[in-house]
């Protein structure tokens, strides 16, 4: 993280917005700080990875995860509130990839703070147009026969990719499986 974050134009814009909210009596500084603290103290891709590992181990959990992502997150003690959480499953023939073209919506509590490339105009515009080229730049080469589905997230609906389980991992326990899952795997810009 850069040391000059506070001087970035976006930081000034956020601060100005906060001031307007506070001046309008819609929020207090303390409330805003508390929300941010809650969001970022526990937000981590380790949470999403745990959900994936559980789904790989437990077919019944996998079904619940695909049917109701919010409930499946809550089951493991993770918050995913204020939005619908949809989990999209990669298969031998389908690869899923997440983007938010309008802004940068993302299930922060399960994936941690979003990477800067996720918020970049380049990723947001190219992911929907040429996902295969974008994936190649992430080092992901998929067979031509693999169908790519790009999910354009928004404030109400956020996504998490359930990656394909690696072969030869039958003996691994849940912790070991979770360690195989990366943040990019949960976004769909890595195989897992």
């Amino acid at each position, binding site marked *: 993280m850069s040391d000059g974050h506070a001087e970035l134009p976006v930081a000034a814009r956020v601060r100005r917005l906060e001031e307007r909210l506070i001046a309008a009596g819609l929020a207090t500084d303390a409330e805003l700080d508390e929300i941010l603290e809650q969001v970022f103290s526990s937000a981590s891709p380790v949470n999403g990875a745990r959900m994936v590992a559980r789904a790989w181990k437990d077919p019944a959990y996998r079904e619940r995860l695909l049917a109701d992502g919010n409930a499946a997150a809550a089951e493991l003690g993770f918050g995913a509130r204020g939005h*619908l959480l949809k989990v999209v499953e990669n298969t031998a023939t389908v690869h899923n990839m997440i983007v938010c*073209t309008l802004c940068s919506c993302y299930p922060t509590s399960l994936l941690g703070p979003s990477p800067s490339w996720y918020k970049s105009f380049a990723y947001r515009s190219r992911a929907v*147009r040429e996902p295969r080229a974008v994936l190649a730049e992430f080092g992901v080469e998929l067979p031509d026969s693999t169908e*790519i*589905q790009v*999910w*354009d997230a928004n404030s*109400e*609906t956020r996504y998490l990719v359930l990656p394909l389980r690696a072969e030869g991992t039958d003996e691994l326990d849940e912790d070991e499986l979770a360690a195989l899952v990366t943040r990019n795997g949960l976004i769909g810009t890595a195989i897992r």
Partner: protein
Amino acid sequence: MTRFAAGARVRALATDPDGHTRLPGYARGHIGEVIEVRATWPLPDESVRGIVRAEPVYAVRFPAAGLWGSGSHSVIIDMWESYLEEAP
């Protein structure tokens, strides 16, 4: 009641609203298929102006070939009912 069911062929309106909207420019005028009725949520175009009116929201799959003229992937976008019409 929902106007469209899963499997319905729909077209995103080609309009260019004056104010805020969640209808992405790249989908306007394009044909897709409803894959799921998501929920009933306030239309952002109105709620930004203080009018809270909920309506059905659909997950709609748009083939890349239609959106961009090439590509074999598909893009799935949440579309508020007001953004859609029946595909011709």
